[in-house]
C-alpha cells in the first residue's frame, strides 16, 4: 500500500488508532480502544471497506487479555480491494465484552455468533447470539480458549452425559 494512502487512512482515523502495515500479507493492522471501536468501524466502512471477511479472537492467557480481530476487505472500491484490514481491540479475559459490529457490517452476523460460542466474548447488541456450530451442552466451556485442553475436557463431556465421542 503506498505510504501516502497509509497516512491518509491513519489521519482519517484520528490519532488514537495505531496503524501497522504488513507488506507480505497486504494486511493493515489497526489497534483501537474498546470505546473508539464503533466510530472507527463506521469511518472504515465509509472509506470503502464494505464487508467483514472474518471475526476471531486471539487468546493470550499469560497477559490475561483477548484480542478480538475483525478482518475487513472491500468489494466496491477497487483501489483498496487488494488489502485486508485487521481491526483489533483487546478485551479482558475475566469479563470479555465488546460492542457488536453487525449493524455496521451485516456480514459479521454469523462470524460473531461463532466467535461468541467458541471464546465466550459477549458481543453487545448482536441480534441473535445462539450457538451456531456447537451443541447446547458445550456452551460455557468456550472450547477454543487456550485453557481448554482437548483430552481432559472429553471426560467432562462424558460425565455430563454428552455425546459419547
Amino acid at each position, binding site marked *: 500500500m503506498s505510504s501516502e494512502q497509509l497516512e491518509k487512512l491513519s489521519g482519517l482515523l484520528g490519532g488514537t488508532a495505531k496503524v501497522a502495515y*504488513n507488506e*507480505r*500479507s*497486504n*494486511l493493515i*493492522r489497526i489497534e483501537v480502544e474498546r470505546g473508539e471501536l464503533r466510530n472507527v468501524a463506521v469511518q472504515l466502512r465509509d472509506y470503502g471497506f*464494505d*464487508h*467483514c*471477511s*472474518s471475526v*476471531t479472537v*486471539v*487468546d493470550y492467557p499469560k497477559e490475561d487479555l483477548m484480542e478480538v*480481530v475483525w*478482518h475487513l*476487505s472491500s*468489494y*466496491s472500491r*477497487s483501489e483498496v*480491494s*487488494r*488489502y*485486508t484490514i*485487521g481491526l483489533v481491540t483487546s478485551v479482558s479475559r475475566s469479563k470479555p465484552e465488546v460492542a457488536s459490529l*453487525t449493524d455496521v*457490517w*451485516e*456480514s*459479521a*452476523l*454469523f*462470524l460473531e455468533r*461463532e466467535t461468541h460460542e*467458541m471464546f465466550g466474548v459477549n458481543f453487545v447488541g448482536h*441480534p*441473535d447470539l445462539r*450457538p*451456531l*456450530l*456447537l*451443541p447446547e451442552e458445550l456452551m460455557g466451556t468456550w*472450547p*477454543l480458549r487456550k485453557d*481448554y485442553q*482437548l483430552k481432559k475436557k472429553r471426560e467432562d463431556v462424558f460425565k455430563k452425559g454428552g455425546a459419547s465421542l
Partner: protein
Amino acid sequence: MTQEIKTIPFTYEALSQLKMSEGVLELQIGPAHAGSGHMRIVAWVEGDTVVKVDPDIGFVHRGVEKLSEDRIYIKAIPMVERPSLVDTVNANLGYVMALERLLGIEPPPRAQYIRVITAEISRIMSHLYGIAIYGIFMGSSTVFMWAMADREPFIDLLQELTGARITYSHIIPGGVRWDLPKDFAENAEIALKYLENRTKDYEKVWINNPVVVARSMGVGKLSAEGAIRLGVVGPNLRASGVKYDIRKEEPYAAYEEFDFEVPTFKEGDSYSRLLQRVEEIKQSIHIIRQALKRLPDGKIIYEDYYKRMSPLMKKIYDEKGRVKFTLMLTSLSPPKGEAVSRVEGGRGEMFYYLVSDGGKAPYRFRVVTPSFRNLPFFTHVMPGHKLADIPVIYGSIDYFPPEADR
C-alpha cells in the same frame, strides 16, 4: 409472467421480529433429509410460502482450528483439505501461502505454475460438483450423474500427478511435492476438449431446458448492494453483478501472468448463478491452456531447501521428480508474527489467518470458508419464496456443509 417476489426485509432484526401467524408450519428439513445435506434447515412455512428460515449447522464440525494448535505446522495440510473436500487444492494452497508469508519464502516459478494448473483443475471439479448437486436438488438425476462422471477425467489427471484421487496434499511450503508427469500436457488437453464438447450437451439438456429455466429464473434474487452487505462470496457474488475475484484483486501464485476475464451477470438469481459457474469453467480452461503452454522448467522446490537435501533425496528428486521432506520441513518454526492469505476457491474466498509465537505449532489458526460466508443466503434470501425454491436456492449457492462447519 414471473410474479414479483415481495422485497425481503434485509436487516436481521426485521426478520427476527416477524410475527408468526397461526397457520405457520415449522418444518425441520433435517440432517437426514434428501434435500438438506449434513445440516438442518428449520423453515417456517405458511401454506406454500416460506416465512422464515434458520439454518442449524455444525453437524460435521471437526474443530480444525482447535486441532491445529497442538500439531506441527506441516500436519495441518491434510487437515485443511478435509472440510472443503471438493476443492482441496485451493484449500491447501491458502494455508501454505499463509505459512510462506510467515516464513518469508517464495516458491520457484515452475512450482507457481503447477500450483495454478492444479488450482484451476480443482476449480473446474468444484464447479462440476456444484452443478451436480444443483441438478439432483432440482430433481434431474441425469445432470447429477453427468457432472459427477465429467469430473473423472480431471480426477484421473491429478491422480497421475499426485497418486491420490481427491486429497492430494500436493502443495508444501516452498513448492510442490511432485513434478508433472511427461504426458500431462496431452492428457490435460484431451480432458479440456472433452469438457468443451460436453458443454454442448449440458446446454441442451440442462441450461436451456425450459423446466430448469422456469424453476430457477427469478428465484433467489440478490441485488449487488444486497450481496455486498451480506458479504457473500465467489460465483454467487459475481452473479449479482459485483466484479470481484481475488485472483485479479490480490493476485497470488503467478495469476497475474495469465490474461483471463472475470465474468459477471446482472440478475443475481439462481439461473444466473448457474450460468456464472459455466462461464467460470470456460475461463479456467483458458487459464490451464496458457499455463501449460508457458510452463517454465526448473526446480519445483525453492533453492535453499534443495541444497539441504541429502544425496539420496537429491537422487530421488532428480530421477523421479519427487520431493522428499527434509528435517527443515518437519521442524518448521516461523518467527513470531501473523499472516493473512486469501485464495479464490471454486466456491469463493477462502480466508486464512495464522498467528505464530515462534513455536513448532501455530498459536492461532483461523479458517473462514466460502460456504460459511454464504450462510446469509438462508436467512435473508430464502424467506418469501416457495417451499420448492429452498432446494433450488440451496443448490444454486453451491453450499457444502462440511466446508461451512470446518
